């Protein structure tokens, strides 16, 4: 019943890797949208909005992604809402990534130096103008290295979509292993592919961080 690893298996793994990339992009876009809203809500002038968005972040950051996956995939059908594995994985990752990116971006917005906020106010810019023209462009530069760093987490976390039967890289490895039973070889290959996806992102994040640190020291003499 067991054969040896052949080209078809590798192609199947490649297809899984493509889905890992696809799912990562879905999570980045969805989570980015949610995260942007969360970041803005967290610094809202309205206390209720701040508390509510803060509670969302605390709730998600205190729950494992795996449990969120199970909740959407197995928990919703008994309530009459059927979801496909892709929808469940995409929605769970969006909810999860949104909370973490929201916190990263809130920190970036708040670390734009105080005088910039005051200067914008002094120039009689409206709140929206101040955000769009003064604060966000600067926050964007501060946020880039940690966001790229978090993309590594996103890619790795898509592996949990395998538990709801979505065939990405980790699940593809499991399926092949079920027919060949060569776990060490197959999971080593899977690990190497994940490494090839993640390592460049890690390095890029480190390089951006170093460049950013250099840029800031020349900008701010204090």
């Amino acid at each position, binding site marked *: 019943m067991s054969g040896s690893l052949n080209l078809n298996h590798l192609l199947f793994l490649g297809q899984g890797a493509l889905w890992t990339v696809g799912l990562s992009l879905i999570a980045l876009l969805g989570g980015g949208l949610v995260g942007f809203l969360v970041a803005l809500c967290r610094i809202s002038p309205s206390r209720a909005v701040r508390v509510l968005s803060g509670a969302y972040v605390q709730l998600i950051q205190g729950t494992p992604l795996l*449990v969120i996956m199970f909740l959407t995939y197995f928990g919703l059908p008994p309530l009459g809402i059927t979801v496909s594995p892709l929808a469940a994985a995409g929605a769970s990752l969006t909810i999860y990534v949104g909370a973490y990116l929201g916190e990263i971006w809130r920190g970036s917005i708040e670390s734009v130096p105080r005088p910039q906020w005051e200067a914008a106010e002094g120039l009689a810019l409206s709140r929206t103008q101040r955000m769009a023209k003064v604060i966000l462009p600067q926050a964007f530069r501060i946020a880039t290295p940690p966001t790229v760093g978090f993309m590594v987490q996103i890619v790795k976390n898509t592996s949990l979509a395998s538990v709801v039967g979505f065939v990405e890289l980790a699940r593809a490895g499991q399926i092949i292993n079920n027919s060949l039973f060569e776990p*060490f070889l197959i*999971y080593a290959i899977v690990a190497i592919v994940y490494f090839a996806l993640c390592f460049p992102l890690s390095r890029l994040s480190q390089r951006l961080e170093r460049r950013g640190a250099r840029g800031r020291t020349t900008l701010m003499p204090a």
Partner: protein
Amino acid sequence: MTLQLDFGAVLERWPSLLEGALLTLQLAVIATLVGGAIGGLAAVGRRSRSAAVSRLCEVYVEAIRNTPLLVQIFLVYFGLASLGFRFSAFAVAALALTINVGAYTSEIVRAGLDAIPRGQIEAAEGLALSRAQIYRHVVLLPAIERVYPALTSQFVLLMLASSVTSQISAEELTAVANYIQSDTYRAFETYIVVAVIYLVLSLVMRAGFWGLGLVLFPRRRRLGTPL
């Protein structure tokens, strides 16, 4: 189909839930203690004068940080089995989590070490402290004090990540949840209850680390500022 929630069937199983939560905490504590120690060693090792040692530590850290925990768990689980070792799922889970958190700890401690000013070490040398004394009092402890908040967040994340070990049927909280939901057909309620338990566990851990920080770093408490 009407929307009717029934938490009773799930809450009835509180003894198994409690057992699962305790096992999750156990995994977290073991991995935090052992993994924390490994991480500290790896951080010091990366600054070693020996290129081989520093290279080895770098490979360990980068390999772990750039691959998913799920795949690491499978590799340890099946890797040990194919070498002829037979361990319980719990032991494998604890081992995989320890290896995993060691790499993350190492990076955090390294950032703390890099933040120790060179002048402080020179001052300690000028005071004729031994190499071991300098490492302990001037480098390692102040470095850990500096990155303590980041470390504790990492350990809480580790506790949450231990849910992944349910995939090799370590009987921690998430695995217990999977049994209960397949027994009661109350998947939604089960996972809501379990999510709440994880939330409570993470709050308990945060509170614990906060208290521990007060004991470990009296200087911080006296000054009232994080250095």
